[in-house]
């Protein structure tokens, strides 16, 4: 009995001890990834691969975007954009043209080239992809693959356009690079070669792409490819690169044929106009109030279906893919950060509703006080009787914005943007002084108050309150109004003033403004500045027009004081310095980061750095 028991135990143990048949536990592949082989044989996966490229394309909303380095905006915070407008940008510190949480949407060197490599890998593989499908499916797959190829070509051209308009000529890479390649022999292409590469890319993309009505909204379209070409050709034909004074051929044309360049720019814009599916949206002119509202609402759209929009980027807060434009730029009095502060400079640029200049009606005295000198508009308040787009773009003192949180709704039942300081004087003694809720001395997050006295209204959404909710209004990259203005500018430069005037006035009239008076070139620049305000075009415009030194001057703001002296109320609007700025001619171009030149010494740095 005992003997038997021992044997059983030993048998059991020997069984337990034996390693048995171990399957090869190391022979496994990841469960959360697709392999190379799977990706390039499945059109849906290839499609998703391209979505990545859309996602990292530098265009859309982030806490700091391109308007922050122009005369439109005094940027609230000390990082990023201030490095440029204070003139301290260097190759060692090329902020804000580097990726980061706040400046993710700035078009920069590294990010665009990364995207180009991603796209080049796609282009290398997409042509063979349909072969992986059975014969009977191959044709339809190839059709889809070709459209994807068109999208990829557009995305690559878009990346190069951002690079060219920021750095000038750049290395042109049209196939996927390998780690073993000799990078030291790759040099910057000339500006001309770079522009040609982009426009060819746009044309090729357009040949594969369908237009907006046949594509999924948000995907690249034929119209987008042609609009990009129009934008790039307008840029390259302008003074910065084509007036014959460029320091070298990396940042401009050698011996440019100016007229030919403008002609190309014109026809590129015309190509888009001739597609026939885009038009100017109706803002309800001549009803000025309606225009103000509709202009504002235009940028609050949630999708890209409007026929003025050629291409842009959509957001959806329902699935956590919103942006936070309100939080980043809304008023401190609504617990927001007031990041991009519109300047007094641009506020003063807005015309009066009759098309006359603001400066015809108000003068600024040596103390900075605005004095009304107008016979027609006898309002002390400088925000009265301005053109409709002002009311749709800028949030100024006492303008209605959002209802306040309960703690302030007694004080501010209307929900205005409250920027005035109210001083009460009785019998010559100051009895109270109350700072506006949205000032930098206000009761709520004063340290986030706007420096200029304004915050953006355009691109924000008054229906979104607090810090918590996300925005999901679209980012519009190309819209028909820009194409019209591109066209008008090219016409003007070609001497076709009549054609130019027609389109300039088309833009004005649509916004309830009368035909322009005075110099047509000024009128054109005014329309571009006002119509496209905050849309990211201004930085390119003031550079290509070579007016950076004139425009990137000190940023101004407003200080408003309302004195109630024994029942008599008087208000003053005083212009103040909101930011000291320094401009240097080298700032027409952005430096190639020092680290990059250290790695690739053959790259020539941009002038002045």
């Amino acid at each position: 009995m005992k003997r038997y028991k021992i044997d059983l135990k030993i048998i059991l143990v020997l069984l337990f001890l034996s390693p048995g048949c171990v399957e090869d536990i190391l022979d496994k592949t990841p469960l959360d990834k697709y392999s190379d082989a799977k990706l390039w044989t499945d059109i849906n996966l290839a499609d998703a691969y391209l979505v990545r490229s859309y996602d990292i394309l530098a265009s859309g909303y982030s806490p700091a975007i391109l308007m922050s380095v122009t005369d439109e905006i005094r940027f609230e915070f000390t990082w990023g954009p201030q490095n440029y407008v204070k003139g301290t940008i260097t190759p060692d510190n090329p902020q804000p043209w580097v990726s980061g949480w706040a400046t993710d949407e700035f078009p920069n060197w590294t990010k665009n080239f990364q995207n180009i490599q991603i796209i080049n890998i796609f282009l290398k593989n997409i042509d063979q992809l349909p072969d992986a499908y059975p014969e009977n499916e191959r044709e339809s797959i190839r059709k889809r693959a070709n459209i994807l190829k068109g999208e990829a070509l557009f995305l690559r051209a878009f990346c190069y356009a951002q690079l060219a308009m920021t750095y000038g000529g750049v290395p042109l890479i049209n196939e996927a690079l390998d780690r073993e390649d000799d990078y030291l022999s790759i040099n910057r292409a000339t500006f001309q070669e770079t522009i040609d590469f982009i426009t060819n890319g746009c044309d090729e993309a357009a040949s594969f792409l369908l237009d907006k009505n046949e594509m999924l909204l948000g995907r690249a379209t034929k119209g987008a490819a042609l609009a990009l070409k129009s934008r790039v050709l307008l840029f390259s034909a302008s003074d910065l690169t084509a007036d014959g004074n460029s320091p070298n051929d990396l940042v401009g044309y050698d011996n440019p044929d100016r007229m030919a360049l403008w002609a190309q720019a014109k026809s590129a814009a015309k190509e888009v106009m001739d597609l026939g599916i885009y038009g100017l949206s109706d803002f309800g002119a001549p009803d000025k109030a309606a225009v103000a509202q509709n202009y504002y609402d235009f940028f609050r759209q949630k999708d890209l279906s409007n026929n003025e929009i050629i291409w842009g980027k959509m957001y959806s807060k329902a699935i956590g893919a919103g942006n936070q434009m309100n939080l980043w730029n809304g008023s401190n009095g609504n617990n927001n950060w007031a990041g991009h502060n519109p300047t007094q400079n641009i506020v003063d640029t807005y015309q009066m509703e009759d098309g006359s200049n603001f400066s015809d009606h108000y003068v600024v005295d040596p103390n900075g006080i605005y004095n009304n000198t107008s016979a027609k508009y006898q309002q002390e308040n400088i925000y009265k009787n301005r053109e409709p787009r002002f009311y749709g773009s800028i949030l100024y003192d006492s303008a209605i914005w959002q209802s306040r949180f309960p703690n302030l709704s007694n004080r501010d039942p209307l929900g205005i943007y409250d920027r005035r300081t109210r001083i009460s004087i009785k019998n010559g003694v100051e009895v109270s002084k109350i700072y506006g809720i949205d000032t930098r001395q206000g009761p709520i997050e004063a340290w986030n108050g706007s420096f200029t006295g304004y915050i953006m209204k355009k691109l924000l959404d008054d229906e979104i309150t607090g810090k918590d909710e996300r925005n999901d209004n679209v980012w519009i990259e190309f819209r028909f109004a820009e194409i019209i203005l591109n066209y008008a500018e090219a016409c003007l430069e070609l001497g076709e003033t009549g054609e130019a005037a027609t389109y300039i006035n088309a833009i004005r009239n649509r916004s309830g403004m009368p035909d322009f008076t005075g110099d047509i070139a000024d009128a054109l620049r005014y329309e571009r500045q006002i119509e496209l305000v905050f849309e990211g075009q201004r930085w390119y415009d003031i550079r290509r027009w070579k007016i950076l030194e004139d425009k990137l001057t000190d940023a101004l703001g407003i200080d408003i004081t309302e004195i109630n002296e024994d029942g008599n109320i008087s208000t003053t609007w005083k212009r103040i310095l909101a930011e000291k700025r320094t401009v240097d001619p080298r700032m027409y171009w952005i430096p190639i980061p020092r680290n990059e030149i250290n790695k690739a010494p053959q790259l020539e740095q941009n002038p002045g750095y």
Partner: protein
Amino acid sequence: MAEQAPARINASYKLESDGGISPSISPLKPLKLMENNLRRQLIMLSKRLIFAFLIQLFLCTVILANTGNAQLKNIEEVKISMKLQEKSLAQFFKQVESETDFKFTYTDNLIDLKQPVTVEEDNTSLYDVLVAVSMQTNLRFVQVNENIHVKLLTGNKRNAVEVVELQEVTVSGKVIDENGEPLPGATITVFGTTTGTITDIEGNYSITVPDGSVLIFSFIGYEQMRVSVDNQSKIDVTLQPDMSSLEEVVVMGYGTEKQVNVIGSVTTVSSKELTLSPVSSISNALAGRLPGAIVQQNSGEPGNDAASILIRGSSTLGNSSPLIVVNGIPGRDLNSINPNDVESITVLKDASAAIYGARAANGVILVTTKSGVESPATFSYDFYEGFSTPTMLPEMADAPTYAQMLREMQSYRGIDESNMAYSLEDIEKYQSGEYPWTHPNTDWYDAALADYSTDRRHNLSVSGGTETVKYFGSFGKQFNDGIYKTSATSFNRYNFSANLDVKINEFLSIGFNTLGSKEDRMYSTKSSASIFSSLIRSYPTSAAIFPNGLPGPDIEYGDNPVVTPSFKTGFDDDKRYRSNNKFSATFRVPGVEGLSLESYYAYDIYFKERKLFQKPWVLYQLDEGAYLAAGNTGKEDGSAFLVGTSKAYSEPRLTDFYDDSKTSTFNFKINYDKTLNESHNISAFIAYENSEYTGKGIQAYRRYFISDQLPYLFAGGTDQRDNNGWVDIDARENYFGRFSYNFEETYLFQFSFRRDGSLRFSEESGRWGNFPGVLAGWRLSNEDFWQDNVGFINFLKLKASWGKMGNDLVAPFQYLSGYGFGNGGIFGANRAYTPSLYQTGAPNPFITWEVANVYNVGFESMFLDNKVTLNADFFYQRREDILVKRNASVPDFTGIALPDENFGIVDSKGFEIILGYNDQKADFSYGINGNFSFARNSVIEFDEPARNVPWQVQTGHPQGAALLYQSAGIFRDEEHVNSLPHVPGARPGDIIIVDYDEDGKITNDDRILFDKTVNPEITYGVSFNFTYKNFGLTGLVQGVGTAMRRIYNDDRQGSGGNYFQYDAVGRWTPDNINASKPRAFERTEEYWRGSHITDYSYQNRAYARMKNLQLSYTIPRHLQDAVKLKNAQMYVSGQNLFLIHTKTKIMDPELGSDTSYPLMKVYAMGVRISF
């Protein structure tokens, strides 16, 4: 593992062999007695013990049930059959014991247990068998009850075997030490019983025992001694000092080693040291006790307060976490283990770790939990109640100071009086304190934090066993409370541990070990970082709580830190469950001495569920305009003018998380241990091991809860609901072995080899790696010439080692071109989300692990009668094949996502020195033990891009060396500014930056590398212990050196938050131009706070602190005996008691950041009882 000596087996006794009529007190009785005596005491200590007692009662019942009262028989009546041919005496004893109820007892060292006996009897009386054995061995056997006493046979052989009736004798005598000094307090117990006594102050004792009993003399620090009474009435005993530290066994990877034979750089911390600190995470008990380990605690938050551990610094640019091995299973969690369950922690720092191959390069921490020993059931109960309070809190500016600084800051910006945030009148009002409604002066720490929080631990364990079954079981409960006044924060951990070793028969043993834990972490929905960030930021000029009790306003996000730590924000309920189980078996191969097969299988389960329920809360703001307009001044009640606002979230929302993972480990090992000619000691094994891991998780989110009563998904709205998941795998397969040889424990040699395979790397290249280790040692002090010449050095061992090890803590599957899911896009008229795929890093088919070549030389020594210990180790490590990207050679314009490649090199070197002095004088014993470690690394290769100037080249400097401008004081005035190169826009009161390259401008090139990093290069600890009679005092001083850290991790001081008092005192003002600190500043707008960070923003992290102090009192023996306790001790203990020196002026130097939950100073009182 070495076979246990038969003597030891025999010298212990069996529970079930208690004869019932024995005059000794049955082991059951003390338990029963104890119940009544102790219950009252223990219940007084805590009501929570009832549960523990239920368990105890249950266990008693089990023991009762197992203990029968066998009828006592005479050796003449017991018949036995056996066939032993030339087998050892020990084996004979064992066989008799296993077949009868008798036990042999004898005095150690008098009997040669190895002498051979031959017994071939069939159904013969035991009496006759013993006579036969007596003839062969010249031994005498005397039966007293169930015991058979074995003695040397002298005189008449006719009395070789006899049965004696029980007789009580009184024995007295004196216990002295080796120097002839009396030993007071020495314990004398009767073997096999709990009867005993202790010596008096003269070392004298007297005890009445049954004749034939064996007395056990013991005293702490001395070797135990056994003496048979044998009718003697006077027994004087000389106890010899316990050299057991030389006999001590150290847990090594896959085995154990006698301390004296260890030739690696190995440090061990005992369970006793671990439980000195009243802390919940084991890692926090290690600081200062492990030479060569950098242990830093970055946060004191309950549940998140574990320290990070680096062995010999950071030797890689990648992950430098050491490998944690718990009970032989690599990769288990350290901090969820109950410190009371740990038997020892061993750290392998050099080639001794090479047996862990590809995971060993960062050092290996071996944790061994307790198991049972052969003894009657011993219950231990430990309890402490602790009171925690922050070690150091930042001192913030008060309201008048803050308002004044803000005015200064605004004046430097040219803001005119009318636009300043605070007027001079405001400052006066803040100063006066008479206007609580409009001008409060708030100390936020005071308002938000309680004076202390409580910590508590209960631990009940039972341990014991017989020759065949040994068991250990324990339950522990740890509780830590949050320091907030209204606290949602708490941490509860429940530990369950059981260990069972069963010897099935002569050849086969099996074991079962389980470690279970449940951790409940409860927090508010605001992180401690957010709470402490708002504590330093909140304006002292705004009310934390209005005089009527309502909470005041936030700066933003609803962050009033009086409210945010509470359940008003919802809750974050994080529960983690671990079940780590191991089954093992050892089979000694019959017929081949020293050969055994061993195998184990471990299955570890981890499960985590977290419920994050966020809801809005209300904060109040005074409508100041209306309040003042109504004629109030700030003194009058403003309740009617407080307006509440709902903060943070517009409505309640819930996120549920479920994560689980499973790891299985299988190990099979063939051991061979043999001693040849009593001088060649061989110990070897070869083994196979594999492990597999799978992990997965899901999360789900809903918002728009109509009420906060039901925090479950179904009660939420369906709009904007969201969910996600993850999955992860890992596997390893390893072959390894070790060969150890020593000649007379003097010449020591060890070779280990491991071949590791990992699924992280490709089959073609990199999956498999070989990791050898060679160690050699020479114990000079064993040599005759040594003992003849330098005998005062009692012990000296030289040792040297080399090992090649790997580090595989890198992302798996980098050899594959994989595409993971990334941020998607919104496309289509319905704005649908399309996920994107992106290449998860460029593939590198050659990718493999990092390789470390570790060299170590050292010595261990003892002087002056073993009172002085001096050990030193010197190491050099070259870590190669570190995964880095070819940054320098691949320009960004290629757009190539660079793969990791194995080419980085980091060198590190350093040393550890241990110096100790331990002595014992009569009833006073004391010891001081210090350790000092230094470890420095330098980066040799990481493909550094070209730098503009040579002094910015990081190669050759430690990892993480900071590139900073160098500060050189403060600009006094305008003239001073103009006299020196300065940043454009600099003004008086700004920090002077050194123009390092002397080009007359402050440019990027003026930044220099500072070699001190956040990781200290120097760590040291000094522990001391004094024992006088029943009092004990132990302490630990711990410190670090050569490290620096950034302060102002939250840099919103100015209009965005309060200033540190540090920045207020002695700052530059127009009236104090010879200042050492800069002017009042605004967030990051001054160049020295934003674009030009200098070393002024860093502070020296060096510190020394009284880490631990414990004063204990052991209840006198005779009192313990009265209630039948084996041990009873009360103690008071303190952790992080005070900083002896620190250079950091703002916060505790050890803390991670100025927004971290503070480190806690703990005062605890506790008891340890065993019975």
